[in-house]
């Protein structure tokens, strides 16, 4: 789907929940990526 209907702009998002997770050490070490989460949620919104 090339018409993604959204632009993933991490800097525009104020998401205390995700920000909190991505600053946890075990999340960072595991490879947790906030942009992956944002992409997933936006995909579900625009599917």
């Amino acid at each position, binding site marked *: 789907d090339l*018409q993604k209907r*959204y632009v993933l702009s991490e800097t*525009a*998002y*104020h*998401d205390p929940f995700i920000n909190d997770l991505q600053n946890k050490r075990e999340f960072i070490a595991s490879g947790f990526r906030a942009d992956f989460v944002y992409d997933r*949620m*936006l995909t*579900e*919104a625009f599917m």
Partner: protein
Amino acid sequence: YRHSSQYRMWSFTPEQLAQKRVEINARAATVLETRVRSFLEQNPDLGSDEVAAITEKAVPVTADEEVLLVNYFARMLLTFATKMNLPTEVAATAVTFFRRFYLNNSVMDIVPKEIFYTTLFFACKSENFFIGIDSFAKKTKSKNEDVLKYEFRLLESLQFTLMNHHPFKALHGFFLDIQNILQGKVDLNYMGQVYTNCKKTIMEAILTDVVYFYSPPQITLAALLKEDEALAMRYLDLKFANEDSPGVLHLETLRTVIVACKDTMSANAVPSKEQATRTVAKIHFGQNPLSV
């Protein structure tokens, strides 16, 4: 979404859904009436008053009574899942499985109480929130075999489709995109409150038939519309009004759809306990004419 089993197998028009329920009810009613008739034939020595009572009370429930009973138990299931501190997605899946089960079965086949814990247990497994049968049975004060007895029947009635797209992730997605589109024009603390309220509205929506008529994002936008119409409309205007690529999305169409969805969500009648009790009794008499 169109590739998903949720869209392919569990999307209906209101007419199709009503038709499905009428057919399921009719099939079960026929079975019940046949059974009562043969009961009466096999018990010729019953008194005329007994026969009259059986003929009056041992009757099938109507399709409408079925829907109300299923919705009553679905709400109980949600309450129970919340009490067990199950994650939102697991609770939503349990309710979804439970309601779908009765799009392929009648409450006269299997009474809701019988499938109640099975649905919850299976939803936990399906959503990677595995609880062993022993601890589940203990928590729910039920028996292992009662929980497991209908697991296959449930899976078969779900037509072997287990993946659910609940509107919660879509809500999170719109929460992000609204910040991007309405950059600087929206108060973030207020957005947090809107988000929380929308989550509740969505959980209510999952108890209604909108899940069969609309896609998760549409349900989410309807919840947002219900919560704060100005915010929803401003977002949609800015987002889609200047949609240059033709045919991608018509704002007017979308607006009509989510308004209709919002109305359907709000119209949902919450069944009363008395009503449910009456229907359960009716099913009992239908299944046990002798008890009449």
